[in-house]
């Protein structure tokens, strides 16, 4: 387990290999489709300092609005990264991101941008929310709340957030690509066992 502190430098991430396990401490901003659209499609200015806030989390938290400008975090979980492939390469380039945290994999273009501009993809462990909200020290800020609570741009201060798996490294290697190669080799045998190795649906 490696402990990383945000902001991340190129040196911090260049030794990391796919399958490594890391934890993160520092400020992380949340990003979903609404935020992606504003940054990339509408070219709105990024409300944070991207030199400092260079780690983003694909997440739609549950936050209770207790009074004006008073928020209470109820739960955070981490959502599928590949959905943001349309916008991700430009976000990496424009905002100089060093790590993106999501569930699952990232898209092909995102992987290429990671290699070109120096960014890694960290994939979540497990599937539940539970501990994540307890790793947040405080809510630092919120922007674009008009997008709705899950879609707004939240900045959270995390302590020892993780564990995460290095899914894509800065050399463009992907943990999922490796797993999928092994999977392909098992399929013919499973087809045979199911008795469908030469099966074809009848013509409609």
């Amino acid at each position, binding site marked *: 387990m490696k402990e990383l502190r945000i902001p991340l430098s190129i040196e911090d991430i260049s030794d990391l290999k796919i399958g490594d396990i890391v934890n993160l401490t520092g400020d992380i901003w949340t990003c979903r489709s609404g935020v992606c659209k504003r940054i990339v499609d509408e070219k709105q200015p990024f409300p944070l300092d991207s030199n400092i806030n260079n780690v983003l989390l694909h997440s739609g938290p549950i936050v209770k609005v207790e009074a004006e400008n008073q928020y209470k975090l109820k739960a955070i979980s981490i959502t599928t990264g590949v959905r943001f492939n349309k916008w991700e390469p430009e976000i990496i380039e424009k905002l100089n991101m060093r790590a993106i945290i999501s569930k699952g994999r990232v898209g092909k273009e995102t992987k290429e941008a990671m290699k070109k501009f120096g960014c890694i993809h960290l994939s979540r*462990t497990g599937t539940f929310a539970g501990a994540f909200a307890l790793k947040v020290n405080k809510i630092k800020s919120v922007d674009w709340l008009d997008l709705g609570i899950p879609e707004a741009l939240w900045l959270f201060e995390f302590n020892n957030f993780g564990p995460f798996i290095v899914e894509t490294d800065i050399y463009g290697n992907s943990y999922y690509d490796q797993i999928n190669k092994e999977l392909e080799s098992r399929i013919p045998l499973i087809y045979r066992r199911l008795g469908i190795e030469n099966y074809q649906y009848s013509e409609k």
Partner: protein
Amino acid sequence: MIFNSKELESALTQLIHRATCELPEESFNALKNAYENEEEGSIAKLHLETNLKNLSLSKQNQIPLCADTGIPCFFIRIGTIENLNLVELENCLVKAVENATRESYIRPTVVDPISRANPGTNVGVGSPVIKYKVDPKIDYCEIIYAPKGGGTEIFGPSFRTILAADGVNGIKKFVFDSLVINGNRTGGTCPPNTIGIGVGGTSENCMALAKQAACLRKIGSRNPDPRVSALELELLEALNSTGIGPLGMGGKHTVLDVHVELSLTHLVGTPLAIAVQCPAARVGVLKLQQDGTIKQGGWPGWFPY
């Protein structure tokens, strides 16, 4: 009217809160068994260990199991209960969802499909989803809350029709190809999942059967029809031998169970549908009795096995 609306609304709000934070024991045990059976030191075991830790923390601190608290869905099983005002019952369901959203028990997750605008309440056209079933074998009304998470809704479902000539192997090929060959193998559905398969019926009933099989049957339960249970076990073994594993990162547990449900169908062919349930298989039950009292239910009796 046999129930007090305020009382029912409040019981439903609490039902939503509880079901969002605590997994039923049966589903927790299935994940615990999966954890125990994965290899020591593997990433699969780490995923499941994180799951189990998060589950206990959610229960202790009443934190939602997943921040995606899902599209709110209710399944209403109506027995031989008299004077049940369904219009008022639906009002209570809608209000309970609004209350639970206002209290931040659940996230405002439903949006307009075109504008993507979020009403912030989780209610509106088509939401909450409400399905009914009449069951003459019970003398009460069972209200099941089983919200559906986005990962499994978007990366999970498949539908096709096959012809009479295609046979049982057509079902096997459809299931395996949909979930493995063309499926999301990279954690989109948060494996290990429970798979529901609808076989037969009309097209929309087939998909409803698949959804109910995935969400309302207990993990480890078997369809009493021996032809169907054999198919369930064969598909379970096949899907797990892919090694896709937890979150698609390799391992023995890609699925926790496969549930197949049949319906008589048209002689020309067979609709086939797949629905996928998350490991955060949230489900909660209330029983509304003839005398107006509301009881906490155990596992839903939607399928009697």
